[in-house]
């Protein structure tokens, strides 16, 4: 069958592929000729923001990526960190924002599928998933549709592949109205000496295609197909959303891990964004080799596919292997056992050239290094946005202090951002694999590592309101809070991954936010000596000129040397003492209190003293490791009152009241609802009081005794005056109901 004629390459359709004229001239210069249509398609995806990081690379260099535990830093499918006992933790976070807006169910589902492949590609068995979700105004009917679709998509995919989804965050804000964010994280564990990389070395070795057949789904950007060369009906027939098949993914996981027990695997990479193109080019480039592919051999789901379509398809659940020559049949046998297609589609050469044929005809002949490494690196201008000055000031004098706190506490507990998230996580299988020592509902989830005594604590965090008000400090706090969540569970952070969700990088104000946020993450990671080993950048999250708040989502992995020494956030026993570690300042800028009560997104973001923060975490872990405390809960959104209330009723088995007495010279609202950083609420049996106070003292951390666990109420006396008195069951209901009702 002759190939259908390709569109001619001219200025109009260069733009339709998302390339600029200077980029095209650069391509002509690199090749010394005009590229053909298929080749141009390859450049368009390889030089896209998504694959080339052209706007972000200069800034990402500011992140610390090295450390004694780092086995693999950024640049591969996922980061790898040594956890001892011959094991490594493999993890990464990725965004699937745009697809989830177009089709929430499939968009979120394929997001999970993609991040899982990034992990098992490295030779690791995925053992936990997290997700970080952001939606627009909850009053808009579409928001509810998106929330349900996304949660359902994550649940369907993750439950079917059998990887537990153990935590995450859900946040609503107007700024996400037309740009919801869906970020998914996966953690895997592998043997340190069995890590696989995306290499294509060894001339003569075979390139093996494994997994689902290639269809026309998700061919990069509908924009590209809407070029005048195609008629209207072509587009209608070509859905741009990919459909996930978690069943095939499950087979791929098992088959790949089985194949990886053999020594004939040279390299492996999943066909993610830009499908066969990016996987083949990147693998060859890493090894400095060439590759020859026969596209006619690619298993196809539809007839009449062109080379352009085959190369740019983003059909899901596909992997590319390079295996040693002579082991093809052995490899195929394993994949056949799992009912998966496995076809040799080409060989490794020593030419440095990607040569592709279809039906015997040469359709691509490109120098690999030029395609992969010559993407323009931009140093985009940055400019501090004007709004920053305006929002930074907050005159506390015009806000009268609170006389009583029940009303505000209930208001905060009811707000969707603080309310119970179990409506979502009860739809996720969070126990499969029987490793989940701490289930969702506490600060960080804790996952045991079988065959060792260790466990890993994981948490994902970002307060984007802080980042809007002050991107540097907001990003610092995102990392600090993430580490604090891990400390509250008993872990010490050993690696971080980040998903940087921002607006249009062509605007200097957005690039400024980006630059500041990256510096903020780098600052805290440096101080804590925690390397950033993987990540993802998602730009252009803006609609009609309105950008999202800067949302640098971070996820960290913490190590517990002894898996039995983990801790949860809820009170355990009536009669236990409650205390606060850390210092409360008169800070209410950027709080949920201001936002929910006064509809204000304003003020200075809480201060962060990273030295103090680290001392606090060390103390908290020490208390947990010595079995001195019963609970530890980080004090964040909603402040001290919310943290105490959550410790009363977020436990799976019982609800307990608490009696709190506090004396302080700062404002009541700041004391109870302010969001000063570096604070942890702990509870402990009275006989541990002296030891704890001594250790806290030695650690140089502030300590305030708060009260006692028990009773049916939450009562708070401030400076001998009753500030809160409410039935704990009433508060619990206020917190439990909203998302359940909303998600329905």
């Amino acid at each position, binding site marked *: 069958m002759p190939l259908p004629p390709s569109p001619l390459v001219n200025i109009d359709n260069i733009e339709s592929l998302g390339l600029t004229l200077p980029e095209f001239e650069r391509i002509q210069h690199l090749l010394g000729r005009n590229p053909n249509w298929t080749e141009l398609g390859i450049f368009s995806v390889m030089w896209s923001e998504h694959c080339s990081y052209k706007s972000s690379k200069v800034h990402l260099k500011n992140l610390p990526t090295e450390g004694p535990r780092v086995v693999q830093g950024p640049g591969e499918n996922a980061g790898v960190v040594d956890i001892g006992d011959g094991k490594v933790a493999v993890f990464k976070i990725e965004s699937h924002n745009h697809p989830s807006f177009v089709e929430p169910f499939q968009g979120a589902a394929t997001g999970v599928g993609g991040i899982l492949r990034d992990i098992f590609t490295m030779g690791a068995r995925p053992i936990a998933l997290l997700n970080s979700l952001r939606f627009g105004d909850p009053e808009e009917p579409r928001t509810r549709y998106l929330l349900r679709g996304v949660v359902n998509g994550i649940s369907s995919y993750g439950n079917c592949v059998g990887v537990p989804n153990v935590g995450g965050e859900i946040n609503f804000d107007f700024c996400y109205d037309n740009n919801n964010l869906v970020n998914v994280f996966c953690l895997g564990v592998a043997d340190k000496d069995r890590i696989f990389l995306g290499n294509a070395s060894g001339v003569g070795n075979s390139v093996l295609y494994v997994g689902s057949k290639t269809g*026309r789904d998700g061919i990069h950007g509908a924009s590209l197909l809407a070029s005048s060369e195609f008629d209207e009906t072509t587009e209608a027939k070509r859905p741009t959303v990919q*459909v996930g098949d978690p069943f095939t993914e499950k087979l791929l996981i098992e088959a790949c891990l089985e194949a990886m027990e053999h020594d004939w695997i040279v390299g492996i990479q999943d066909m993610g964004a830009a499908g066969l193109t990016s996987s083949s080019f990147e693998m060859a480039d890493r090894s400095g080799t060439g590759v020859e592919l026969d596209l006619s051999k690619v298993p196809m789901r*539809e007839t009449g596919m062109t080379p352009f379509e085959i190369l740019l398809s983003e059909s899901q659940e596909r992997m590319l292997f390079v295996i040693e020559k002579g082991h093809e049949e052995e490899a195929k046998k394993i994949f056949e056992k799992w009912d998966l297609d496995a076809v040799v589609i080409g060989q490794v050469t020593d030419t440095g050239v990607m040569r592709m044929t279809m039906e015997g005809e040469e359709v691509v002949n490109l120098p690999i290094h030029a395609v992969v490494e010559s993407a323009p690196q931009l140093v985009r201008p940055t400019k501090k946005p004007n709004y920053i000055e305006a929002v930074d000031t907050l005159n506390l004098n015009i806000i009268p202090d609170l006389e009583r706190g029940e009303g505000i506490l209930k208001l905060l507990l009811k707000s969707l951002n603080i309310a119970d998230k179990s409506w979502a996580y009860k739809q996720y299988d969070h126990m499969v694999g029987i490793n989940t020592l701490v289930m969702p509902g506490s600060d960080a989830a804790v996952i045991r590592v079988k065959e060792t005594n260790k466990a890993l604590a994981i948490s994902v965090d970002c307060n984007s309101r802080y980042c809007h008000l002050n991107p540097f400090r907001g990003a610092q706090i995102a990392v600090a809070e993430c580490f604090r969540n891990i400390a509250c569970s008993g872990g010490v952070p050993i690696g971080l991954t980040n998903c940087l969700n921002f607006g249009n990088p062509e605007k200097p104000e957005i690039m400024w936010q980006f630059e500041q946020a990256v510096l903020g993450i780098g600052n805290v990671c440096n101080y804590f000596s925690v390397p950033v080993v993987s990540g993802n950048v998602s730009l252009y999250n803006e609609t009609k000129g309105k950008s999202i708040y800067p949302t640098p989502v971070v996820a960290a992995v913490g190590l517990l040397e002894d898996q039995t020494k983990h801790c949860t956030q809820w009170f355990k026993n009536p009669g236990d003492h409650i205390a606060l570690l850390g210092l409360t300042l008169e800070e209410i800028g950027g709080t949920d209190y201001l936002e929910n009560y006064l509809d204000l997104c304003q003020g200075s973001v809480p201060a962060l003293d990273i030295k103090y923060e680290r001392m606090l975490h060390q103390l908290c872990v020490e208390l947990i490791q010595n079995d001195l405390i019963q609970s530890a809960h980080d004090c964040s959104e909603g402040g001290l009152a919310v943290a105490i209330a959550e410790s009363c009723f977020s436990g799976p088995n019982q609800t307990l009241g608490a009696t709190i007495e506090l004396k302080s010279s700062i404002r009541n609202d700041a004391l109870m609802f302010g969001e000063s950083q570096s604070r942890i609420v702990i509870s402990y049996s009275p006989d541990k009081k002296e030891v704890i106070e001594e250790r806290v003292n030695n650690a140089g951390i502030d300590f305030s005794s708060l009260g006692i666990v028990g009773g049916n109420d939450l009562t708070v006396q401030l400076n001998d005056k009753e500030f809160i008195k409410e039935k704990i069951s009433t508060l619990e209901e206020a917190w439990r109901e909203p998302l359940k009702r909303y998600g329905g």
Partner: protein
Amino acid sequence: MLAKIHVTLKDGVLDTQGKAVHHALNDLGYEEVQGVNLGKYVEVQLDGLSQAEAEDRVREMCQKLLANPVIESYRFTLDSQE
């Protein structure tokens, strides 16, 4: 009036269920099976509408709720006897 609605995946959209059923039927010895598509069949009982009104309303229901326009198409017939 009874609306009989068929909702099916658009061409080119991966039909994971259809694929699985196709394999299963082949494995069971039905080698004559060349392809399987799985869709939804919805019957909606309607009251007090004219044929023309019903047509508009059912089309709307399909677009808004019964089908996912991004990946599915729908068609329906109206049966007035019932």
